[in-house]
């Protein structure tokens, strides 16, 4: 779908008033007839980035498909807070099987639909970073390589939050988790470890890979809609800050997601069959310190004496991303 360009500079932020857009370009969330797929009453923490992200993603998917979506959800925060027996927040067909098999369950559902000739019904697999990148990785890679007709969404809050904030392969360097405390030989999570899921997805050369955050509502919905226009294996990696696990204020969720993008720590891009086709440019690069300070999981890097050397390494990582993906906007760049 083509996107209408709006010049917003006079507003001074990225807030997009829906009244400025054509009706069909407005966000799904702004509509009263949205599916409300993840309806209210769930038990998520105040300020939960994942609850926000999941609602946006699924409502967009429902709109794009005329409410023809089935979801396979991995064990994790989203599954636990959305289905406290005997209640459920889900207003679509939804199955939770195991921690490590959401991609495979989604594959099975897609196969069943294909065998039955019900090609209009679409499948979304979803889970957190732990369920996607660690324990579910073999199933995820299998789904990718078979090009199964599944959109898999990873809600990345950078640790095993549901079990008490343990480190996953998505936990950033230097971050404090319950088993990477700033004691002993390393201040928090070790540098040089971890997996870059979007790049791994890229390497599988599947039809669509994209990253997004809960800071850019339009972009997130657009990417889901784009994914739903396609068939085959598709992957969406969404950064969803976790106030509890990150030690941040619950009102800072969106702000932190935006800072993750503006520092370059979380590159936002789209790719087609292994080739990056679009990136979200950073208009004003923020130093990583602005992002790290509001999070207690990085508190050990500050204060007396702090770890300025570690902060520098983190900054170097952000700079590398910016170079690698070409994230800085020139004056001549148009707003995407």
């Amino acid at each position: 779908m083509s996107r209408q360009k709006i010049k917003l500079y006079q507003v001074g932020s990225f807030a997009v008033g829906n009244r400025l857009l054509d009706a069909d370009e407005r966000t799904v969330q702004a509509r009263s007839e949205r599916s409300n797929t993840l309806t209210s009453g769930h038990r998520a923490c105040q300020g939960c980035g994942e609850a926000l992200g999941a609602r946006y993603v699924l409502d967009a998917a429902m709109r794009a498909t005329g409410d023809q979506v089935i979801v396979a959800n991995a064990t994790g925060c989203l599954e636990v807070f959305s289905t406290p027996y005997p209640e459920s927040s889900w207003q679509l067909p939804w199955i939770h099987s195991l921690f490590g098999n959401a991609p495979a369950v989604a594959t099975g559902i897609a196969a069943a639909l294909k065998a039955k000739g019900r090609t209009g019904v679409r499948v979304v697999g979803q889970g957190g970073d732990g369920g996607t990148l660690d324990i579910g990785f073999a199933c995820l890679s299998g789904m990718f390589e078979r090009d199964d007709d599944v959109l898999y969404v990873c809600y990345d809050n950078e640790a095993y939050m549901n079990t008490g904030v343990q480190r996953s392969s998505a936990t950033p360097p230097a971050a404090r988790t319950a088993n990477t405390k700033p004691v002993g030989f390393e201040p928090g999570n070790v540098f040089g470890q971890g997996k870059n899921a979007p790049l791994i997805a890229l390497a599988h050369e599947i039809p669509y890979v994209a990253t997004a955050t809960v800071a850019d509502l339009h972009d997130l919905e657009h990417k889901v809609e784009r994914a739903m226009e396609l068939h085959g294996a598709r992957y969406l990696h969404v950064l969803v800050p976790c106030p509890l696990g990150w030690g941040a204020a619950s009102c800072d969720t969106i702000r932190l997601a935006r800072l993750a993008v503006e520092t370059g720590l979380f590159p936002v891009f789209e790719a087609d069959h292994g080739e990056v086709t679009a990136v979200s440019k950073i208009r004003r690069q923020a130093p990583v310190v602005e992002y790290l300070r509001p999070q207690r999981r990085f508190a050990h890097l500050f204060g007396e004496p702090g770890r300025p050397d570690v902060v520098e390494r983190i900054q170097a990582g952000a700079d590398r991303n910016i170079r690698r993906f070409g994230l800085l906007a020139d004056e001549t760049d148009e707003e995407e």
Partner: protein
Amino acid sequence: MRSQIEGSQAVAAAVALCRPEVISAYPISPQTHIVEALSDLVRTGRLEPCEYLMVESEFGAMSAAIGASAAGARAYTATASQGILYMAEALYNASGLGLPIVMTVANRAIGSPINIWNDHSDAMSQRDSGWIQLYAASNQEAVDLHIQAFRLAEAVSLPVMVCMDGFVLTHAFEPVDLPTQEQVDAFLPPFEPRQVLDPAAPVTIGAMVGPEAFAEVKVLMHVKQMQALDVIGEIAGEFAQAFGRSSGGLVRQYRSADADTVVVALGSVLGTIEDAVDELRDDGVSVGAVGITCFRPWPLAELRAALDHARRVVVLEKAFAVGLGGIVGQNVRLALEGLPTRVHDVVGGLGGRPITRASVLRLLGDVLEDRLEPGALTFLDLDWGLVQRELERPFGPHAENILRDLAAGLR
């Protein structure tokens, strides 16, 4: 139509006749010929509509089957040994969700040490997983049990595993009578799921259940399995009527109704046991055999009825509970609770060591002449010399030490 074919080919043909809609396949010896044959059938359009998924592991295989079944498709997979362990988490998930998946288990030993040959340790390790377990004594019965399994699974909304001895049955050429598509269609109607993932009527499946309800949910699984005991018998009866031969059911008796001594076993070894029974009967010995076709749910009443007149029962099984003893033996003792029967637990055939008629005759000779203590665990054809020598050795890996002794001709 009756033909001389490989067991795996026969099973693949039988499964195809049941019109599965999703097959997930991960290869492991000795099940490979089954999934290969099914792949050919799907690719050539002889089995359609059917999606054949070449998954990345057995865990993926069962998980995909879970998704497919939950979405209302008839789902099938096959595995053995290490594979059934790798999918263990998913097995419990499938039964807990009440999904009527059918799976072939080409019974094979579990490592370490790695061993690709037949015994029952794989299926036995999952006896508590909530799956119904059926054991085929021949390739004909394997064919028949698969057809009955789909019907059974969908009738009771529980997954069913059909066990057949790896290599011994899967790779054996035997005469098998395969039914026609019309016959199977008449016996097995299309899958009507109890609950299904469908945008037209959304449901949430797989919610977390806390202490206030978990016990009731679990007990329901048990109740359903126990109810299945009746359904299994009914389906076997209908099968006999529709296809003209007796197959399946809970237990099978061979010359045991008036036998003083009865051998109890599962799977293909029953053929050898029946040969031994005939030979002994010719010599006037009062002996018979009871085969257990349905191991889970445990047919306690039927087995008790089949054995309660016997003075001695010899349970000959192809697996055992390390640190305890016989598995089937324990279950049989439960069935004979309160009776004065002498029960002998005998373990044989581990890791593919053949159970021969000569061995069975020797065993029965020992039993009949009271040379075997009931209550003691007996290992058939075991080289205790090798074991003893290894026990006296304080270093080195056991398996490799024993293999070296064997190669050196030491016993």
